[in-house]
């Protein structure tokens, strides 16, 4: 466990008195892509939010790069290298693409700005074309790319993505997942992916966790889980 980049130990959390997470354990090693799948309301998003301290874990510990971050304020985590792409993209719709990307760079040294910007534009050439347009006029896929690009501008070592495929056409999802692979392999960014789209997520991931009712019920390699008949029945057949 000491080797893990992120370690979650027995975390209980939730909004209000009802707990959405009832003792979650998982770990992510440096350089991995890990997928967390599960049905609606299983607690996937809550876990991702709890990693960022919002809501706080009621029990258990969260370790990031050997440091206990269970009580670290949400906004400080970005400086630690733990960056989240929130569910629903949440780009700044009145700001231009360039300004959105700049917002991501507020916490890092401004000297990195232009090189980082060029990297993001290389990953998502469409953002370079649309850099002067307002975020609100972009298509859903482009907004998702902008949200990922904005997160990359704060130089994450661990990138948390909440449902990046939400509401996007299959072709666009494939493109974004291919870019995630590139970000992982090319830039060395570790990725935790929370997805309902289990097929794409598990194909991409080194390892996967399955969450049911606030606990991890199953874990294995991405391809192993894909081949698992239980998973196929619950998350893939018909849902794919």
């Amino acid at each position, binding site marked *: 466990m000491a080797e893990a980049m992120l370690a979650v130990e027995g975390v209980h959390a939730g909004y209000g008195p009802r707990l959405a997470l009832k003792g979650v354990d998982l770990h992510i090693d440096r350089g991995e892509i890990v997928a967390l799948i599960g049905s609606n309301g299983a607690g996937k998003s809550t876990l991702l939010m709890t990693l960022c301290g919002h809501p706080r874990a009621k029990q258990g510990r969260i370790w990031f790069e050997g440091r206990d971050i269970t009580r670290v304020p949400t906004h400080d985590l*970005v400086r630690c290298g733990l960056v989240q792409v929130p569910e629903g993209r949440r780009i700044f719709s009145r700001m231009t693409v360039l300004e959105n990307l700049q917002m991501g760079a507020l916490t890092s040294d401004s000297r990195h*700005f*232009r090189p980082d910007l060029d990297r993001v534009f290389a990953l998502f050439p469409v953002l370079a074309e649309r850099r002067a347009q307002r975020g609100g006029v972009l298509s859903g896929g482009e907004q998702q790319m902008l949200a990922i690009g904005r997160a990359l501008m704060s130089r994450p070592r661990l990138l948390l993505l909440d449902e990046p495929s939400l509401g996007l056409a299959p072709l666009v999802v494939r493109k974004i997942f291919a870019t995630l692979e590139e970000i992982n392999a090319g830039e060395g960014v570790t990725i935790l992916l929370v997805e309902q789209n289990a097929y794409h997520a598990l194909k991409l991931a080194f390892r996967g966790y399955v969450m049911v009712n606030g606990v991890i019920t199953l874990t294995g390699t991405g391809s192993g889980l894909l081949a698992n008949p239980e998973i196929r029945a619950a998350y893939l057949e018909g849902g794919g």
Partner: protein
Amino acid sequence: MSARLLKHGAPSPVLVTAIREAALTGLLVVVLAVPFLGLKIENAGNGLLLETRWPAAFIAVGLAMGGRVLLVLGREWWHRPAVFDRFPGTVFLSERPLWGLGMAGILLALFLPLLLPNRYAIDTATTLLIYVMLGWGLNIVVGLAGLLDLGYVAFYAVGAYSYALLSLYFDYSFWLCLPLAGLLAALFGILLGFPVLRLRGDYLAIVTLGFGEIIRVVLTNWNTLTHGSQGISGIPRPSFFGLPFGVAVEGGPVTFSAFFGIAHDPLHRVIFLYYLILVLALGTNAFTLRIRRLPIGRAWEALREDETACRALGLDPTTIKLSAFAIGAMFAGLAGSFFAARQGFVSPESFAFLESAIILAIVVLGGMGSQTGVVVAAFVLVVLPEWFRDFVEYRMFLFGAAMVAVMLWRPQGLLSHRAPTLRLSPGPAPPH
């Protein structure tokens, strides 16, 4: 080059420039001041007598040199690259399309007392400028940070009563109370900010509305301190940097008109107050234009759009909100102490909810976040009703109709265009 200079402990280039320019200015003023101020020819009956007035010349030279240093430093502050300008390979854009309009407006404002030298016009313009300043202050809270504040007039009241009470009980002068009033109002801004940190939208609006009423009710009922609804009268008027306005009295202090050797005219004070609020308002505007280029200003805008995204990007919503409340309140406090000084009288009646509503209407009508829009809207809401005094019975009706028309055709406000602030510099990216 400059970096190397700095490394060797040489004084910073700005200071060098400031000292050089101040020396040059000083030399020029010496040349001018020695004959014009330093020497005076007196008619001594049987011939002319040359009298010297070295202290006056000395003061003139000192003032000019000090002014030059301030000018250079101010210029440097204004042009110093903001944090965003330092992002290599990008160019910061200012609101160019409106730049000319703004300059024309400022020039017009500067020469207004010459163009319309009557008391009514200047008084109306002063009132307009108070509302412009309040609009600009509230624009920070509502327009930039997106925090709907229905009790903004409370900070205006805090500023006004700060000056009224400090002068009443401690005899503090206006020039001392002005910054104190701003500071106190900012403190009240933080005081309001803390309990409402977690509230948004409608809920925030209701709590701020309540806060505004609390301040007014306290001012009305705390008879021993504030004289209740009778208000505080006889608030000393601001002096011209120590020179009071008014008719010179034998044995009294040197008045403005006596010092400058001109005839007393009650219009002097009115014009002085006009320029004072002009400077205060323009200062508010310059501050806002500047801070929008700094990370905190950009964070306000981001907070208005999406608080969750802000947090995910490592911005602390607490700091962002409190700073918006504090800074917005500070400007209301400054405007409030000006208001008290101008009226010479404050009472809780001046700080009713209607005032908050008007200021908010100015911001919303102008187009949230637009500095020029605030001026246009303040003009529409403050000066037009003055012009249409003949239709006084229909005023509220016209006002309502205008509001409905704006909601129908310009729901974003009169000037709601938000110009992009940044573009990539032309040419290839710098080597990294």
